[in-house]
Structure formats: structure tokens, C-alpha cells
């Protein structure tokens, strides 16, 4: 019996039990679809995060407070609190081009009857430069406005959309942030949805206004710095570390607890996390593929029992062990491959749906599809072997006697 004939034979016996065959392939289908959709989701998310980190610009350094060990807790205040004085000191560095200190708080924004909770970010006039942002309408606040603690605000695209028909209508309007009036002087260009957070859903005000007037805080969340060039990144990193120690009268051998990260560092960390996440999702999905395989084995065992007599007849007229084995393995593999094909189709559809209808993003690539298909083949083979060998080992006389 050649391969085509075996295949036709197995398709025939699968067709004889349509519903059962379909339900069995469903297990594999869900497994394969899960692998494809979840891997697409993992890759989509991580590529988005990567893109948003890349958009930070390659000259960027970010200083944030780090963790202080327990025995240094009482000195924590001076060892890892960032201040505006630090920011000013860093801006005087040779290797540094621009500095944007940052405070972030949740805030309530009101215009006429409309009300929106968003992120209020305080920063310096150099923000645009440091953060690679573009003003779409109006302008960013300048150094003078910042120094004078003026109540001016630049809106993110999402907030502007919320309140105004068009960006140009927003300029000059007065909105309230936590009951304090601010004049809208600019609106930022849309940055797009970037993975973990919507970068467009925020308002930006001068940092001094934020610290002294709006929130009454002394400490800042982070300092964003841009180095004069990408080649100066290492030098800038060292100098920043040194200045932060000088600012605190800490000797160069002692530790301060700041985290100074560059875009490339953040990028590689994010990529690693992305890979891990994708791997985890694929692992979870693989479990369902495995469960589907058990379903196939289960059905094949039932089928062997039901068809004991058929096996006996086939053996009596000259089928060898391997011919019977082949028949049942091809049946199992056909089941799982059909499931695999349906799973690919379903998984791709699901990925598209997720991408289109949810804020999540998916990235489809050929590798997981090939893997999923190959594994569905393998699952059929592995889980088909035992039932098939059981069938092939049946004693013809006993099998013939079976009712």
C-alpha cells in the first residue's frame, strides 16, 4: 500500500466519524492558534516597546533614584533624592547638551464642563530637545516662562483631542489643572500608542510651577539628559556620576544610589524582557498543544478498540504489522495536521483581530507559524504511535472474534 492510498484510507475513516474527528482536531487547532496569536502578541508588544525606547534618541541618559541598602536608610535622603540643584549642576557639564528634569503626578484637567484625569508632567524648556518631541501647534514654554513659574501648559495630543475640535482652536484657551488656571500655549504632535503607556495622554508645565505652585514638592522624579554626541555617552555617564557625588559631598570611593541608564541599556533590557515574555506565552500555548495531543491519543485509542474487528480482517487477508501501524499513524498525523492548518488560519485571524480591535499590538512572523505546524505534526506522530502500535500488535484470531 503506497502513501497516497494510506492517506486516502485515513481521510475516509476520519470522515466516517466527522464530529468526533472535528472535536479532536479542535484541541490541536486551539493549541496552534494559541501559539501563533500569543507569540504574535509577545513580539508585537516587545517591538512596540523597543520602538518607543528607540524614539527616545540615542544620546539620551536618564538619572533616576535607585534602591538604597537597609544599612544606609537614614542617609537615603541625600544619597538618592534628586533635586533641581542637581539638574542645574548637570547642565553645566561639557559633555551634556540639554537637561530636562521631570516631575510627574496625576492631575485633574478641566475645560468648560469637560473633565479629564491625566498625567501632569513638570519639566524644563529643553524638554523638546531632550525628548525628541515635536510641537504641532503653538510653541513650547521658554526659559523665562519657566523661571517665572508661569501658568502655561503644553498639551499632549490625546488631551487636546479630548477638549478641542482642532489643535489651533486650543491655543490661548485657559484650562484648569487641579483648580489652577493655565493658558494653553502649545500642543504636541501625536507620538502614537507606545506599548506600556500612551505618551500623548498628558499635559506639560514648567517644572518650577509644578513643584512650587501645583504640588508643593521638593524632590524630582528623574533627570533626562542628552549628550552632545553619541560618542560622548560613556564620558557623560562618568561625569554625571561624579557631579552627583560632588553635589552631596560624597567621596568618589563611596556609593550614591542613582540609576544612570542610557537608551541602549534600556533597549537591551526591554528586548530581553520581551523575549522572556514571548517565550513564556509560547510555553503556555505549547501546553495547550500538548493537551490537544492527549486528545488525539485518547480518540485513537477509542478508535483502535472500536475497529478491532476491522484490524483482524485486514490482518487475516495479509496486512503486516507495519501496514496497520502506518494506517493508524497516518490517521493521527492527518488529524493533527488538519488541526494545525485550521489553527494557523485561526491564529492569524485572532492576531489581526487583537491588533485591530484592542489597544494591544501583534506582530506576525513566519517562524512561529512553521514551528507550530511542525509541532502539530510531531504531536500527531508522538501521540499516534502508542495507539497505532497497540492496533498493530492485535492477535488476528482474537480480533476477528471481537464484536
Amino acid at each position: 500500500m503506497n502513501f497516497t492510498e494510506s492517506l486516502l484510507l485515513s481521510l475516509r475513516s476520519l470522515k466516517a466519524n466527522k464530529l468526533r474527528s472535528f472535536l479532536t482536531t479542535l484541541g490541536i487547532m486551539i493549541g496552534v492558534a494559541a501559539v501563533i496569536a500569543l507569540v504574535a502578541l509577545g513580539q508585537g508588544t516587545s517591538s512596540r516597546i523597543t520602538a518607543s525606547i528607540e524614539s527616545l534618541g540615542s544620546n539620551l541618559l536618564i538619572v533616576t533614584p535607585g534602591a538604597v541598602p537597609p544599612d544606609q536608610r537614614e542617609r537615603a535622603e541625600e544619597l538618592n533624592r534628586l533635586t533641581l540643584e542637581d539638574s542645574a549642576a548637570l547642565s553645566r557639564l561639557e559633555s551634556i547638551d540639554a537637561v530636562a528634569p521631570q516631575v510627574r503626578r496625576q492631575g485633574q484637567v478641566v475645560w468648560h464642563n469637560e473633565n479629564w484625569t491625566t498625567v501632569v508632567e513638570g519639566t524644563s524648556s529643553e524638554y523638546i530637545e531632550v525628548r525628541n518631541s515635536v510641537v504641532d501647534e503653538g510653541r513650547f514654554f521658554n526659559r523665562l516662562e519657566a523661571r517665572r513659574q508661569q501658568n502655561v501648559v503644553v498639551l499632549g495630543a490625546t488631551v487636546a483631542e479630548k477638549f478641542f475640535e482642532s489643535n489651533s482652536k486650543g491655543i490661548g484657551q485657559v484650562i484648569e489643572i487641579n483648580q489652577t488656571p493655565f493658558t494653553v500655549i502649545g500642543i504636541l504632535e501625536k507620538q502614537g500608542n507606545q506599548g506600556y503607556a500612551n505618551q500623548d495622554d498628558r499635559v506639560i508645565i514648567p517644572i518650577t510651577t509644578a513643584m512650587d505652585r501645583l504640588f508643593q514638592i521638593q524632590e524630582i522624579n528623574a533627570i533626562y539628559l542628552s549628550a552632545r554626541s553619541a560618542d560622548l555617552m560613556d564620558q557623560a555617564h562618568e561625569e554625571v556620576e561624579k557631579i552627583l557625588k560632588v553635589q552631596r559631598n560624597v567621596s568618589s570611593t563611596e556609593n550614591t544610589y542613582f540609576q544612570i541608564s542610557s537608551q541602549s541599556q534600556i533597549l537591551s533590557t526591554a528586548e530581553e524582557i520581551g523575549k522572556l515574555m514571548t517565550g513564556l506565552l509560547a510555553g503556555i500555548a505549547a501546553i495547550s498543544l500538548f493537551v490537544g495531543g492527549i486528545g488525539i491519543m485518547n480518540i485513537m485509542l477509542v478508535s483502535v478498540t472500536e475497529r478491532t474487528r476491522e484490524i483482524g480482517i485486514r490482518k487475516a487477508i495479509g496486512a503486516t504489522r507495519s501496514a496497520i501501524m502506518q494506517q493508524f499513524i497516518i490517521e493521527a498525523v492527518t488529524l493533527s495536521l488538519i488541526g494545525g492548518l485550521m489553527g494557523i488560519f485561526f491564529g492569524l485571524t485572532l492576531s489581526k483581530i487583537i491588533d485591530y480591535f484592542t489597544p494591544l499590538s501583534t506582530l506576525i512572523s513566519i517562524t512561529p507559524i512553521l514551528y507550530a505546524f511542525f509541532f502539530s505534526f510531531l504531536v500527531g506522530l508522538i501521540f499516534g504511535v502508542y495507539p497505532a502500535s497497540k492496533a498493530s500488535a492485535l492477535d488476528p484470531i482474537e480480533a476477528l472474534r471481537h464484536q
Partner: protein
Amino acid sequence: MTEKPLIFLDRVNKVYSSGEEEIFALREITVEVEEGEFVAIMGSSGSGKSTMMNLLGCLDKPTKGDYYLDKQAVAEATEDELALIRNKKIGFVFQNFNLLPKLSALENVELPLLYSGMATEERRQKAENALEAVGLSHRKQNKPTELSGGQQQRVSIARALVNEPVILLADEPTGALDSRTTTEIMEIFQELHQAGKTIMMVTHEAEIAEYAERLILFRDGMIVDDNKR
């Protein structure tokens, strides 16, 4: 005759052990069958007739003793060799037909050829010829359930003969048939015998044994009588 006969069972024993108990289904059976003979086998139920047929049909191996079929020592054959012998040299007809219910009459007849690896066209042609020989060309596309008992048995005879076996084994081939279809089937057997086919047939009825030219009588796993007419 100096040559070995077509079938030679040499002091064959078959013992089934169920638990403590040992059942001697066959004791020291010696049978020789020449080419072209038509042998009927009779005996009360449980006397060992089917056990011998299964051994002859290479579905089972003797516990002790030798079996030569067409000069080949079957007792030493491997499982795959037995499958090959069943496929090429033996045609088996069962009391309950043993057709595959999901296949058409023609496909059932094709099955042995499928396992001998014959090409599709040739296979189809041979199967059609075999069906024609038993007078069922007009029902070749029917499933077994759409056929009468007599027709089903004729399909199974066609299947048994399609590979041109050296021997046709039939274990109570008319046991499930009425008297009219029994006659039809026996006429086919007689024709086959006249054409030179070697046939061994188990039956309960003396009238049916009449068709054969030799009668072997079983009792308690032993041959008690072996008469050529």
C-alpha cells in the same frame, strides 16, 4: 509420491492454557492434502475444527508439530512472513463473511491486492474479474449492508480468490445462510473444485459435506476418520 503434498500437518498440537487449566484443542493431528482436493471437515462443536483451520490459514501457530504449506515451513515463519503467506497463498472464507462495512463490494475484494502492493489499475481490473466470477458485477458499488447474506458470502469468496491463493479455506461458509443460497454457494465451490482449486471446508451438515470428495471427522481435538470417496 516423493514430493511433499500441498498441505502437510505433521503431528500438530494446539494447547490453550486458561489459568491453571490446559485445553488440548488439537492433539497429534497429521493431515496431508494434495493439490486439487476438496476436503470437508466435520465434527461436533468444540472438537477443534476451527483451531485447525486457523493454523492452516496461518492466523495462528501450532504449540507443537510442523506445518508445511506449498513446501514452506510455516511453524518457523516470522509474523511478517505469515502475513505474506496469508496474503499470497491463502484465501479464507468465514461464516460471518467478515467484510469491511464501510467499503464497497469492489473495494473489499481489492483489499488483499492493496496489501500486496499492486498498482491501482491492475488491482481494480482483477477485483472486477473476481466479482464477475461469482456473478456480482452488477453490485460492485454496493456496501455489504446493502447485500443479501448470499451475496455477501460471494463477495468474500471473490476476495478470498482474488490473489489466486494455493488453497481456499472455508470455516462453515454456509452456516449463516438459508438453504437456497447455501446451494448457490456450494455450486460456486464445486465449480472451483472442478477448475482445480484446492479447498478445505468445515461444515455441520452432511448434505454439504457431500459436495466434497474427502471427509475428515474430528472428535475432541483428534481426527477419528479420514475417508476419500
